């Protein structure tokens, strides 16, 4: 996370607090809603409920029902509404409750939101943020557990950010709201720090109190290491860090690269790290084929395949819908066990 562009606030600097990702995300939204009247939030159950995954807790109370709007279950209509409002200079944040639901409104997303700027030859801007919950691990089965970032990143015109830490959740939210492009902001339910979902010990994190931007399109070295690079995003960053800590004891020094943005993709950071370590594991909670894991590998080899001292390995969902039963779901998710054995394999 990098602090950029924000002039120091007038008040004395407040020290960072430890927040959940959900609280940090809401803090970013609040700060921008405070600063800019054009920002408003809409989606299903984002008002009185505060967002099924706590993405909007407290916003209704603070900003009222004109700026925090519950919608009917009409995703095509309200995604399009966001686009139209953005075209007219507002800065909507619009929530798709689960990314899995994209299929009911994808035309508005990828044929309109994403393409209008291009089709207009740059004359029309669509500054909005599309937030959505992703990820599994709590037995929500095939239609409520997907990540799908590979799908969104494949289609041009939307930026795609995927925070893993509370600090980045806030900084990327602020950056996304201020960006003049449509930005998809995908938050992992298992990383939000919800009281009612089991979570990683890394769910809490230091979050600066002031308004800052995390730059879109820059990866972060979540842990630096010499022996092998794990390229990943979102909840898997935490798993990778856990595994790295374990493996340190075995003398394997793992570098963990948190991409944070898929579009734009920080190809320099990937190549730089893998060029140094010579070994690559890609961890991706999305489906394996035709997605992020292949793209990361291609990024390395289309520059120079000879940097690879061993075949790279991917840990992703093996092209199967997410099964319901816990035993099956855990078998297809990129668990710490699978990450660990992938690293061991690539270490030879």
């Amino acid at each position, binding site marked *: 996370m990098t602090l950029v562009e924000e002039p120091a606030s007038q008040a004395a600097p407040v020290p960072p607090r430890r927040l959940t990702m959900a609280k940090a995300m809401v803090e970013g939204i609040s700060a921008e809603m405070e600063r800019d009247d054009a920002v408003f939030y809409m989606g*299903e159950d984002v008002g009185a*409920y505060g967002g099924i995954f706590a993405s909007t807790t407290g916003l209704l109370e603070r900003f009222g029902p004109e700026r925090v709007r519950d919608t009917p279950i009409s995703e095509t209509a309200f995604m399009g509404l966001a686009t139209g409002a953005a075209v007219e200079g507002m800065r909507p944040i619009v929530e798709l409750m689960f990314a899995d639901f994209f299929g009911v409104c994808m035309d508005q997303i990828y044929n309109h939101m994403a393409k209008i700027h291009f089709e207009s030859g740059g004359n029309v801007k669509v500054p909005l943020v599309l937030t959505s919950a992703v990820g599994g691990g709590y037995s929500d089965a095939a239609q409520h557990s997907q990540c799908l970032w590979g799908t969104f990143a494949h289609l041009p015109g939307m930026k795609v950010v995927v925070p893993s830490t509370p600090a980045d959740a806030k900084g990327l939210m602020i950056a996304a709201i201020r960006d003049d492009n449509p930005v998809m902001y995908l938050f992992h339910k298992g990383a939000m720090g919800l009281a*009612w979902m089991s979570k990683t010990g890394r769910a809490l994190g230091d979050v600066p109190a002031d308004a800052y931007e995390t730059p879109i399109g820059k990866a972060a070295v979540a842990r630096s290491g010499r022996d092998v690079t794990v390229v990943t995003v979102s909840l898997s960053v935490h798993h990778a860090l856990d595994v790295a800590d374990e493996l340190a004891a075995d003398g394997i020094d793992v570098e963990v690269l948190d991409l944070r943005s898929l579009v734009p993709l920080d190809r320099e950071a990937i190549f730089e790290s893998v060029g140094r370590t010579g070994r690559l594991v890609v961890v991706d909670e999305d489906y394996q084929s035709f997605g992020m894991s292949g793209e990361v590998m291609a990024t390395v080899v289309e520059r120079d395949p000879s940097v690879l001292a061993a075949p790279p390995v991917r840990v992703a969902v093996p092209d199967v819908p997410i099964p319901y039963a816990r035993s099956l779901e855990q078998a297809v998710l990129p668990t710490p066990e699978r990450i660990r054995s992938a690293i061991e394999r690539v270490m030879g």
Partner: protein
Amino acid sequence: MAAVARSDQRLDAPTGPDAPSHLDAPTGPDAPSRLDAPTRLDLYRTMVLIRTFEERIRQEYHADKTPGFDIGAGKIPGEMHLAAGQEPVAAGVCAHLRPSDALTATHRPHHLAIAHGVDLAKMAAEIFGREGGLGHGRGGHMHLFDPAVHFSCSGIIAEGLPPALGQAFAFRQRGTDGVAVAVTGEGAANQGAFHESLNLATLWQLPVVFVVEDNDWAISVPRHASTAIGDNARRAAAYAMPGERIEDNDVEAVYEAAGRAVERARAGGGPSLLEVHTLRLWGHFEGDPQTYRTDLATLDEVDPIPRYRRRLMEAGELDQAQVEQIAADAAAEVDRAVQFALASPVPDPSTATAYVFA
């Protein structure tokens, strides 16, 4: 108050011998029933079985999620949408269906599955995520498929309607008199799939009955914030099909209206739309804090099962001994199903990638 509100928007609806005639004497909880005693007892039995199942699932679901509710923990993990209060819809509609008729349900599917005769033990096993489940534990409670009774459901709201069209289409092309019933919530009725499906059903004169379960809520969003009109049955006119709204969660009114609609479809008269004003007795899903809800205190009074029980007892068609027997039978059947589920093995992780392709 008439429990069966005639839509005044059926101007385009075909009339004639196949058209439903429902302008007879008012029915409803306060009117004398037109159903015979065995039918009424069956409706009651079905509702009790459903409630018994839902209560047991609720208990199993929460049993091992304490201390502190953890949605992913326990014998039954994940989201759990129970239908307590909506039994009249399931019992009233499914009483007219045969195992060869299709039913597509929503994310809140158990009541409809049970009333349509889905194998209770395999369904329980699926909910517990076991190998003996309807989907060998792959589907979970929002994805129940029982081909034996042409039952399915989906976690994506309103998207169960289009497949029902196809089932109805297949029945008709094959020359059978099968009917497909497609159920959706009142919140979901504002999704594009609703519009497209109703239009196509009329155009192709498909044997479909659309049923909207209006339980006043779509998670935390009240009906008036989701739906521009007070009565979805009036939307039927936009598709030249008959529409009826059943007020007051009255199982007998549902039974009668559904009977007309199913018969109409079976006889080749085309699709119909019913909306039932029903009740979400519990939270949207288990764990829902329901802080947005103001009617919590009065819910018990409108619970349709005790209400129907009183009615049958007052009519002298049900006595205390029968009440207890029906409850005991239901408990035993549910217990057998749950025991079956618990005895069924947890799926082997090495089979996690099976069943992607046939």
